[in-house]
C-alpha cells in the first residue's frame, strides 16, 4: 500500500483511528474508487466485536474530500439502520456525522465508535427478539453483568445461533502485574454459543463454551491449560459463572505469585553465574548469563515455563567464540538441555547450585561439539 497515494485528509483520520482506538482495529484492504485509480479512498475495516471481527467498508470520495464517508455493513446486517432519518419538522438527534469536519483527525474514530455501540444495541435487540424460552431466561439472569456483547448469527446455510462474549473477573489484570507494559487492557472472556431451538425443551443441551483471552496475556497465564468446570444438566449461566470466576481468579492469583518464585530463582542464579546479561523483569520468563570454563566463554539461556517450579527451565548454551561460517555467522548453540538434576522441592539456591555444577562438565561437551562443527566446516 503506497502511503503517498492516500489523500492526506483520509490518511490522518485513518492513522488516528488505528492508533487511538481501545480496540485493535485493522485495515484489511484499501483501494481506489476514482476513474483513474489515482487515490486510495475506500477501505475495509476489521472491527473486533463479540470475540470475532465485523467487516465494514468505509467509502470516502477522493474527488470530494470534504464530504463525510459512507459505510457499507455486512450482508447479514441489512436491517441495521444506525442513524434513522427524522420526519420533516422533527429535530434530528446529533450524531458523529452531523457538522462533519474533514480536517478534524478524530472524526473517523468517533464515527466508528458510535456505529459500533449502535451495532451492539442492534444485536442485543435482535437477540432479544429470538423466540427461545431458555435464551430469554439466560438473558434476563445475566442482565446485571456489564459489558456483555451478543451476536445473532443467521444465514442461509448456517444454523441459527446466539453468541455471547461474557467478560470475566472484575479485577484489573494490568494492575496486578507490577510494571507491565501492556498497552491494551487485558481481559478474559467466556464465549457462550447457544443454538436457537425455538421450542421449550426440558433437557436443553449444554451451550458451547470456550475461554478466550487477549493474546498478550499468555506471558502470564495460559488459557489453554485451564480446565473449564463441567456444565451440569439443567444449569444456567448465572449458576455457572460464579464457580468459573472463582476458579479463574485463584489460578490467576497463583500465576501472579509465581512471577515472584521465578524472580527468586533468577536472583539465586546470580550467585553462581554472576549478574545476568539480560533478564525479563516483568514476567521473569527469560534470563541469560555469561559463563566461562578456562578461556572458553559462553552464554547460558534460561527459559522458565509458566508451571515453574513443577516444570524445569529449558537451558540452552551458546558459544561466544564459535560461529557457523555459513548461515550468516550465527553463533553455535546447544540443544535444549533437560537432563540436569532437578526437583521442585529444592529451594531456589540449591536448584541454581545443581545447575551450575552440572554445567561445569556439560560445557566441556559443548566446547567439543563446537570444535567438531568448526572442523566439519573446513
Amino acid at each position, binding site marked *: 500500500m503506497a502511503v503517498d497515494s492516500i489523500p492526506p*485528509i483520509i490518511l490522518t483520520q485513518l492513522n488516528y483511528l488505528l492508533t487511538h482506538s481501545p480496540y485493535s482495529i485493522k485495515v484489511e484492504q484499501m483501494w481506489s*474508487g476514482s476513474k483513474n485509480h489515482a487515490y486510495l479512498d475506500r477501505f475495509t475495516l476489521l472491527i473486533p466485536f463479540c470475540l470475532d471481527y465485523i467487516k465494514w467498508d468505509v467509502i470516502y470520495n*477522493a474527488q*470530494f474530500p470534504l464530504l463525510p464517508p*459512507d459505510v*457499507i455493513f455486512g450482508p447479514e446486517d441489512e436491517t441495521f439502520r444506525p442513524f434513522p432519518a427524522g420526519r420533516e419538522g422533527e429535530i434530528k438527534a446529533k450524531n458523529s456525522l452531523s457538522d462533519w469536519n474533514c480536517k478534524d483527525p478524530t472524526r473517523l474514530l468517533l464515527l466508528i465508535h458510535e456505529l459500533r455501540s449502535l451495532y451492539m444495541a442492534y444485536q442485543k435487540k435482535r437477540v432479544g427478539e429470538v423466540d427461545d424460552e431458555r435464551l430469554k431466561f439466560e438473558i434476563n439472569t445475566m442482565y446485571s453483568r456489564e459489558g456483555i456483547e451478543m451476536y445473532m448469527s443467521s444465514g442461509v446455510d448456517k444454523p441459527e445461533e446466539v453468541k455471547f462474549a461474557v467478560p470475566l473477573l472484575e479485577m484489573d489484570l494490568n494492575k496486578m502485574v507490577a510494571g507491565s507494559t501492556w498497552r491494551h487492557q487485558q481481559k478474559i472472556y467466556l464465549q457462550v454459543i447457544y443454538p436457537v431451538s425455538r421450542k421449550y425443551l426440558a433437557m436443553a443441551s449444554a451451550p458451547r463454551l470456550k475461554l478466550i483471552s487477549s493474546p498478550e496475556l499468555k506471558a502470564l497465564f495460559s488459557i489453554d491449560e485451564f480446565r473449564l468446570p463441567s456444565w451440569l444438566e439443567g444449569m444456567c449461566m448465572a449458576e455457572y459463572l460464579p464457580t468459573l470466576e472463582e476458579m479463574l481468579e485463584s489460578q490467576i492469583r497463583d500465576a501472579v505469585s509465581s512471577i515472584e518464585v521465578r524472580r527468586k530463582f533468577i536472583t539465586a542464579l546470580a550467585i553462581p553465574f554472576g549478574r545476568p546479561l539480560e533478564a525479563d523483569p516483568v514476567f521473569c520468563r527469560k534470563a541469560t548469563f555469561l559463563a566461562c570454563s578456562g578461556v572458553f566463554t559462553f552464554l547460558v539461556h534460561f527459559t522458565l515455563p509458566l508451571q515453574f517450579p513443577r516444570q524445569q527451565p529449558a537451558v540452552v548454551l551458546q558459544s561466544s567464540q564459535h560461529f557457523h561460517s555459513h548461515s550468516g555467522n550465527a553463533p553455535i548453540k546447544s540443544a535444549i538441555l533437560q537432563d540436569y538434576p532437578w526437583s521442585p522441592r529444592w529451594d531456589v539456591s540449591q536448584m541454581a547450585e545443581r545447575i551450575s555444577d552440572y554445567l561445569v562438565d556439560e560445557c566441556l561437551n559443548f566446547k567439543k561439539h563446537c570444535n567438531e562443527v568448526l572442523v566439519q566446516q573446513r
Partner: protein
Amino acid sequence: MDDLSSLHKIQISGPTLASLLHRFSSAPADFDGLLFGRISHLTPSPLSDDPSPSDDHPTLIATVTSFFSSPSPTTFHSPSLHHLISSSPDPLIGWFSGRRKTPLRPSMRESSLTLSLSSDPTFNLTNCLFILLTTPFQDQLIHTHEYKAFQFRSSTGLFEPKTLDVVNLGPAFRGHYGSFTPNSRFPDLPFEVKGLGSESMVEDEGKVESDKFGLVCDEGFNVGRLKSLMGSEAAGYTAELEELYGNMIKKMNGLARVVEQSSARLLEQEKHNMKLRCKVAGIE
C-alpha cells in the same frame, strides 16, 4: 399509492439504461441522481378458459423513463431540487447511486436517504425505487458494470430486490413501441440566452419568449405569406425565402459555435473546480 402493493418488476428502456451506465463510467468519481417515470397497473388478461384462481391484484409495474444526475454525489444538495422535480414531465419515482468497486448492497447513506425521501410527504414516494450501480473489484473482468434495482418498502423499512427489465427493440417488445420516449434531462442551470431575457420563461410557460424567438429567427416572415409561393409572385418569394433560409443556417452555425465554446469553458471551469477541491484536500 397503496403501500401494500409490491412491484412486480421495474422496466427501463435500453437507451435510458445505456445512458445511465455511460454517465456512470464517465463520471470521475461516485455520483447519484433522480429517477423519473410512472407506475402502472397491468390487469392480467387470462387467455385460457381455465377457471384457476388467478389473483385479483393487478400487477404493478414501474417504468423508468428518464433520469437526472449531477456529476457528483451532491444531487440532493442542489438548491433547485424541488423545481427540478416539479418541472419534470414524469413524476419522481426514486433515485440511483453509482459507486465504483463496492459491494452491491445499499450503504448507510443510501438507506437513510431513501428512508427520508420516502417519508417526505412532498414527494409522495411510499414505494421508492432505488437503482444501485457498481463496478466489479477486479479490473480484468469481461463485464464492466453491475446493477441492482430495489423497491424500498416504507412499511417494513427494507429494500426488496426487483428484476430490472430492459426494454429493447425486437419482436418480444412490440407492445412497448411508442410507450417510451427516452430522454435525459438537461442539468438545471440558471441560464440566460442573450437577447431573449428568459427570466419570465417559467411563469408564462415561455409563450412570450417563444414569440420573441420567432421574431428573431424568421425576421418577421409570416407563415401566412407562404401561400404566395403559389402563383405568379412565386419567383420573387422563392428568392426571399432562400435568403431567409441562408440567414437561418448562418445563425444556427453561430449558435452551434457559441454552444461549443461555452461547453469548453464549462469543462475548463469543472477542471478548475476539481483542482481547487484537490488543493483543499492537500492533494495536487
